[in-house]
């Protein structure tokens, strides 16, 4: 029972980050390898903001955490937007390998920026602010309990995903994003603000990644400059598993990977966790090369 909740919480996080990969692929047909780094920037921005707020008006429980999370989302979105402007927009007409290389370069720059500018060691999330969430356990039975934080992670991730679906399917900018994803040139001809739609996609993906970053940094209690690497890899796997470019697919992939990891490490052993994930990925890609819910042929790297 307990490990199911663990798996769901982990899967929700993967899904949030995977959405960023899949949305950018859907609209530009490129893989934003710097997305894991945006997740990491979100982690650091939150801790930084909480530190500044605590210094400004003292440690106010709850308020600082929420404001810190909001500031993290804003800052990470700014990074995501800047990434698109600096590293990708000029390369939009270039060969597909050019923005890919640019993305990898950007990821190295961001990681080293945090390593050299902030810390090469891990940083602890302020326990004062996360304590009420991590320390309070909800008993599910004699042998199982869930922390309040896990419930918060599940509820807020589902809320964010719901918000995203609403945004994409019910608003003008969502319509613009979908139009741009279908045919960029045609959308531009009928007056869709293509540049704005693409920039907004990056901002949206980055804010989801930052929200995930805030929750993960509380969940594991520590953050490091390389925290984005493995998260990025797993989330990318989730996006591919669900069918890259497909938004419900990313959510499904995230939950499948999160659950399979926790169920495997609980029942077989932690050593088999990554093996199982990639076996599932290989099987799915063998049977359905476009991923579980994928429609478009993945002809671009």
């Amino acid at each position: 029972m307990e490990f199911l909740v663990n798996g769901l919480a982990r899967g929700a996080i993967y899904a949030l980050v995977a959405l960023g990969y899949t949305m950018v692929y859907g609209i530009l047909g490129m893989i934003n390898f710097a997305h894991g780094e945006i997740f990491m920037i979100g982690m650091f921005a939150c801790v930084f903001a909480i530190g500044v707020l605590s210094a400004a008006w003292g440690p106010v429980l709850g308020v600082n955490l929420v404001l810190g999370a909001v500031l993290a989302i804003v800052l990470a979105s700014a990074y995501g937007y800047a990434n698109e402007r600096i590293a990708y927009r000029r390369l939009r007409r270039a060969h597909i390998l050019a923005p890919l290389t640019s993305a990898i370069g950007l990821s190295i720059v961001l990681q080293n920026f945090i390593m050299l500018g902030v810390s090469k060691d891990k940083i602890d999330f302020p326990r004062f602010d996360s304590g009420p969430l991590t320390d309070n356990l909800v008993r599910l039975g004699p042998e199982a309990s869930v922390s309040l934080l896990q419930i918060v992670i599940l509820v807020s991730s589902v809320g964010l995903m719901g918000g995203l679906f609403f945004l994409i399917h019910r608003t003008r900018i969502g319509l613009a994003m979908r139009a741009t994803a279908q045919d960029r040139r045609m959308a531009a001809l009928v007056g869709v603000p293509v540049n704005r739609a693409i920039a907004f996609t990056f901002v949206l993906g980055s804010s989801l990644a930052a929200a995930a970053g805030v929750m993960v940094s509380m969940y594991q209690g520590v953050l490091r400059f390389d925290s984005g690497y493995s998260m990025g890899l797993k989330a990318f796997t989730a996006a591919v598993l669900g069918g890259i470019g497909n938004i419900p697919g990313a959510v499904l992939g995230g939950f499948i990977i999160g659950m399979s990891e926790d169920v495997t490490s609980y029942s077989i052993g932690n050593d088999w966790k990554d093996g199982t994930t990639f076996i599932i990925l290989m099987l799915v890609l063998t049977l359905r090369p476009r991923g579980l819910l994928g429609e478009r042929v993945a002809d671009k790297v």
Partner: protein
Amino acid sequence: MKSIRSAVGLLYWAALACVLGACQKSESVIKIGLAGVQTGSDGQIGTTMFYGSQIALDEWNAKGGLLGKKIAFVSRDDEGKPNQAVAVAQELVSEGVVAVIGHFNSGCTIPASEIYQQSGILQITPGSTNPQVTERGIRTLFRIVGRDDQQGVVAATYARNTLKASKIAVLHNKTAYGQGLGEEVRKTFEKLGGEVVLFSGISGEEMDFRATLSAVRSSGAQAVFWGGMYGQAGPLLVQLRDSGLNLPFLSGDGTIVQEFLNTAGAKATGVYLTFGPDFEKIPAAQGFLEKYRARFGPEGPYSIYGYEAANVLFKAIEEAGTTESAKVADVLRSRTFDTSLGPVAFDEKGDLRTANYIIWTVRNGKFVTEAP
């Protein structure tokens, strides 16, 4: 265009002249390699180890150096990664070092040592405790620290006999050090009639341990042993306590770092670690500790080992009268050195003849000795 080309040519020759000049000048110094982890998750422990060696170097140079020459360190960061350690070893060889102090992680020391052996370079490690380091018959490799099969016995015996645990969960970080130490604990714990109910590896970048902790809970373990480093030990302990498991938490020398306490905070209860003696209580070590703290601030667990590794190496080179590795190795094997760690003598394999692991614990946010 032509003038640019000739300017570049001039620069090239100037640079070459500088390099050649530096080479000739270096004849008058003895170069010693200093290799270990400086960045990454184990960065802090490795950096404070380097500082210890640096103090020994400055003391010797102030006394006039070694064999009439000054000593110079060539220090390299292996990032705690085996492949980087090999690259670092090759660089040190081409730099022309006569001996190497390092590396720190067993997983780095083992592959690097093969390169030093081929090049006839003496190596002394202040921190690698995996048995395999000295079990491969390299005559010019020494370690000035205990072995995991000694350390693991102490930890497992404490868990079984003093804490009265009959079931233990052993988690490790899949490295030569962590897994090796875990295996030794398993061996001894089973020999003492206990049962290892869980033996599981967690790779180095993972920080969410909840799935494994659920498995620990349902395995019915009465104690948890962590074979790994302080970077993961902190979050592991916090998540263990968060999920309501108040089991004793045992670990080895890789955990006894201030960073661990910073992360664990008030949740550092029931912690038992194996490590060397408390140098606060050893009069011979006070001179070094004072000097270290005045210069670099609080010392790390391996600072004094870094210091004495350098001292023992310099003494042996002085006595051998040469930097030739085979002769220095003979001196190291045949003599007992007086150090602040106590008398240091090496056996045939290059291990310490006496290791002195004891149990440490955490009280009031500080590491204190618990029991011999």
